[in-house]
C-alpha cells in the first residue's frame, strides 16, 4: 500500500501504433514508467522518439494501443470518454509548447476555464481563485489582457496558472520553454520548480535543453519509443 501511495502515475507496457496495414508504425514500444508523488522529472529524447505521444497518453488525451495507465492506482482504461475528461480535468494539468491559450478570452478567463468546465458554470469564487493563480505566476497585472496580446513568456505563465487551476496531482509539460529565449525559459522553468516545491505537485517536463534537464530530480530518456535511461539525481 505504501508503494501505491507514493506512486501517483504508473505506466505498464505502453505501446502506441499509428496507421493501418503497410503504413503501420509503432511509435511507443513498451514503456514502463512510474511517477512518484511530488517529483520533478524531465523527459528527453530525439525528435520523433515519441515524447509527445507518451505525454498525451499519460495525460489521457490519447489511449494506448497496449498497456495500462494507472492514475493513483486506478486503471484509466476502464473509463469512457467523459470519465477520462473528468479524470483529466480533476487530476492532471497541461502546459504545451505553444502555450495554447484560447485567443478569444482574457488571461483570467483562460485560467478559469478548467474550473468552469468541471463545474458547468462560472462562479465568482473561480475569479478569486484564478486571480490568486495569476498572482503566483506574477501576471496579476495582465489579468484582463486578451490572450493574444501577451508575450510568449507571459502566455506560458498564464498556461502554467491554467494547468494548476484544478489543483492537479500531476502537471505534464511538453516543451514549455521550447519557444522562449534562454532568459525567459529559465524564468518559466524556475516558476515550475517553485510550484513543485511549494505545493508538492508532480511534474513531468519534456525538454530538449540538457542544461534545464540537469535542474530536475530525474531525467528520463527515450529513443525510438523505448526508455533507454532513467536517472534519479540526488542534488538538484
Amino acid at each position, binding site marked *: 500500500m505504501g508503494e501505491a501511495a507514493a506512486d501517483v502515475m504508473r505506466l505498464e507496457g505502453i505501446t502506441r501504433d499509428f496507421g493501418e496495414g503497410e503504413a503501420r508504425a509503432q511509435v511507443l514500444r513498451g514503456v514502463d514508467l512510474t511517477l512518484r508523488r511530488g517529483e520533478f522529472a524531465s523527459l528527453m529524447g530525439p525528435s520523433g522518439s515519441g515524447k*509527445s505521444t507518451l505525454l*498525451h497518453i499519460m*495525460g489521457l*488525451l*490519447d489511449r494506448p494501443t497496449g498497456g495500462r495507465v494507472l492514475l493513483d492506482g486506478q486503471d484509466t482504461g476502464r473509463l469512457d*470518454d*467523459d470519465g477520462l*475528461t*473528468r479524470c*483529466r*480535468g*480533476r487530476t492532471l494539468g*497541461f502546459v*504545451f*509548447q*505553444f502555450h*495554447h*491559450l*484560447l*485567443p*478569444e*478570452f482574457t488571461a483570467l478567463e483562460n485560467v478559469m*476555464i*478548467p474550473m*468552469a*468546465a*468541471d*463545474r*458547468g*458554470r*462560472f462562479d465568482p469564487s473561480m475569479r478569486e481563485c484564478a486571480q490568486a493563480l495569476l498572482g503566483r505566476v506574477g501576471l496579476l497585472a495582465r489579468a484582463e489582457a486578451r490572450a493574444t496580446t501577451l508575450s510568449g513568456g507571459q502566455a506560458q505563465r498564464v498556461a502554467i496558472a*491554467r494547468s494548476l*487551476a*484544478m489543483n492537479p496531482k500531476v502537471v505534464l509539460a511538453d516543451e514549455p520553454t521550447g519557444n522562449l529565449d534562454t532568459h525567459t525559459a529559465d524564468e518559466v522553468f524556475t516558476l515550475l520548480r517553485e510550484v513543485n516545491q511549494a505545493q508538492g505537485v508532480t511534474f513531468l517536463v519534456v525538454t530538449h535543453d540538457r542544461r534545464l534537464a540537469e535542474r530536475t530530480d530525474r531525467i528520463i530518456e527515450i529513443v525510438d519509443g523505448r526508455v533507454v535511461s532513467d536517472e534519479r539525481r540526488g542534488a538538484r
Partner: protein
Amino acid sequence: MRFEWFIAIRYLREGKAQTALVLGGTTVGVAVLIFLTALISGLQRSLVSQTLSAQAHVLVKAPERVARPLPSDATTADHVEKVPDRIRSIEQWQQVLKALPAIPGVIAATPTAAGAAFASRGPATKSVALRGIDPESFAKVIDILPRMKSGRFALEGAEAIIGSTLASDLGVVVGDKIRITTPEGRGDVFTVAGTFDIGNKEVNARWVFIPLRSAQTMLDIPGGATTIEVKVDEIFEAERVAREIARRFGLGADSWMELNQQLLVGLRSQSASSWMIQGLVVLAVALGIASVLGVSVIQKSREIGILKATGTSTGAVQRIFLLEGALVGGAGSILGALIGSAMAIAFAGLARNPTGEPLFPVDLTPGLYLGASAVALLTGTLAAWFPARRAARLEPAEVIRYG
C-alpha cells in the same frame, strides 16, 4: 453563467464577420418569411371577406328536383345573377329558420325572397335582382351596415334600398321614388330609403332590397321564401354546416366555398407556392448557418482540442456549437420579425382603397411570429447539429500536437 453559454456567446461575439453573416442570413430569411406570410394571408383574407361581403356563408334553398349539379358547374358570378326558371319557395321555411340556430356552427339566419325584376324611373330602366328581406336579421348575416352610403338600412312599408351604382344609373337619391316591375308584369312604386356600396360592381348595379312581404307579393309566392341565408362562426367550416343542413332538412344547401370553387382553387395554389418559397428560404438559411458554423469548427479545431484537454466534456463542446446555432437563430428571428413587420406595414401603407382600407392588407398575427421564431430556432439548432458533432468528435491529441 452556464459554461457553454459563456463560451458560445464569446465565440459569436469574437467571430464578428461570421456571426454577422449568419445573423444577416437568418434575419433576411425570417423577414422574408414574415413579410410573405403576412402579405399572402392578408390578401387571402381580404379576398375571402370581399367575396363574402355580399354573400352568405351558406345558402339554403328548395331541394333540386334533379340531382345536384357538380360543384364545378357553379361559378362565382352565377350565384349573384342566377334566377331560377320558376321561383320556388322553401316549404315550411319558418320552421327551418327556427331550427337552424341549433345546428353547430350556425350563428345567424335570414329569409329571402329573390327574383328578377326591372327598376325604372322616368325613361331609365334597369334589370335588377330583387331581394325581399327582413332588414334586422339580414344585417346579422351580411355585414351591410358599415357599407351604407346614404340613408339607412331599414325598410318601412314601400321602401327600397338599392346599390349605389344603380342609384346613379337611375339618377335617384334617398327619398326619390322608383318603379319596380317583374317580368310577369306585377309592379309597384318604392321610395329609396338608402344606398349601399358593397365593393362589388355587379351587386352595386343590380341589387334592390325591399321588404320580404312586398317581394312575396311581387314574385307571387305568398308567405314564401326562396332562400334562407346563413352565417357560420368559422367560414371554412361552411361546407360542413351546409351538408349538415341539407341532411337534416332535406333541402338544398350550398356553402360559399362550393359557390366559389375557382377562388378556393386560387387560394390553395397561392398557399402552396408560398409554402414552397418559404421552404426554400428556410433551406437556404439552414445551409448558410451549417456552412459558416462548419467552417468555424474547422478554424477552431485547435481551440476545441484545448477545451477538451482542459476538462470540457464532449457533450459540452457539442452544446457550445448547438447553442451558437440556436442563439443566431433566436436573434435572427427577433431582428427578422422586426424588419419583416416593418416591411409589411410599410407595404400595406403604400396603397389604399378610396375607403381608406389598405389595398394590400397584411396579417401580422402572434401565431405568425411564434411560428417564424420556432422555425428559425429549430433551423439554427438543426443546422448546427452536424458542425457540433464534428467538433465534439475532434481528438484533442490530434489537434494539439502541432501548434
